[in-house]
């Protein structure tokens, strides 16, 4: 009964999850904009470049296997307006990224919408929103 109830609660909360619009450079069709997820792992590379910055991080999946995620963010200009710099992320940093995952299940996501954020291990939060 309790496990069924838990599952029901998770389902209801998921259904009510309100997500923001994705304004990725190339389109919104590839990402699951309705169901954002939080991914926790270790930064392997931070690419500070136009048109969109990219975050690469190692994440342990449910089976304990390490998967390298590629996360599309926003341009350096937009990130700067959200208090980022090119050295904000360094390899080895432990972070949690809220993102819209790729619909096809690949380890790819988009974090540059109004719900997207990075939570650092010391509790700091940085957004990546366009405004």
């Amino acid at each position, binding site marked *: *009964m*309790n496990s069924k*109830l838990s599952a*029901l*609660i998770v389902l*209801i*909360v998921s259904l*009510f999850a*309100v*997500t*923001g*619009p*994705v*304004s990725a*450079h*190339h*389109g*919104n*069709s*590839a*990402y699951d*904009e*309705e169901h954002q997820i939080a991914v926790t792992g270790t930064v392997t590379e931070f*690419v500070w*470049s*136009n*048109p*969109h910055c*990219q975050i690469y991080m190692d994440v342990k999946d449910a089976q304990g296997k390490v998967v390298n995620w*590629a996360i*599309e963010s926003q*341009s*350096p*200009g*937009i990130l*700067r*307006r959200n208090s980022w710099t090119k050295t904000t992320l360094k390899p080895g940093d432990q972070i949690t990224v809220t993102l819209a995952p*790729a*619909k*096809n*299940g*690949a*380890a*790819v996501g988009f974090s540059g919408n*109004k719900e997207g954020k990075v939570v650092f291990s010391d509790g700091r939060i940085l957004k990546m929103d*366009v*405004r």
Partner: protein
Amino acid sequence: MRNRPLGILFALLMIVASTVAAQTKPPAKAAPKALPSNQARDLSGVWMLDRPRPNTVVERFWVYELTEEELPMTAWGQAQYDATKSSFGKRSYPLAETNDPIFHTCTPPGFPRIFLHPYPMQIMQSRGEVLMLFEWDSMRHPIYTDGRAHDTTLGPLWMGDSIGHWEGDTLVADTVNFNTKTWLDRVGHPHSDALHVIERIRRINHDHLIDDITIDDPKTYTKPWTAHLDFLLRPTWTLAEQFCEDQESFDEIENNETKPAK
């Protein structure tokens, strides 16, 4: 005790419902800051497109289209539209299939599509010229207000050729001489070489600018249609250098999105 799980569920539902209600309730707005009358023609500043944001992108409009209205297309215009495969909005195609002209080549989005890119615009003014500077691709769009005629010696152009004049505190800009390599918006509405864009731009108070746009393109649309854009002043922002570069690594990410999952 038996009802405790149901009680928890009910409480959770109430929390979720109140959260949703709080998110949908429009925030109280302070009275707009007035603009001194001697600054009514001063459009200068960094401006960002200001639109209500839908809860999901599946809803149309937001930064994808100029207007929510259905556009009155000619047979030729409809055929052009049917051939476009945008990766944005409701009609969005997978990235591997899109024929969006800026997708693989980083070509300019053109005018007025540039307004729909979610990046700020700076307006600078000098005697005889209102200059729009866009963060996206560091593009520029001058509107000459010194009484000159359209210059058709260059082009056809990505951003068109603009001249303007003041009617009271409204800048009326007239833009022609477009190439046909661009879409009007991010969902693929087309235009022809007959595109004529008329804008009525006005700073309605200190922090807000409006642009009422008329699209007149008789080859593509059976009648002229209009769009209304709102912009919000961003006094602490500066434009960053931004070029649509490094397409290669970006393509790699996006190819992974369109490949079947491993």
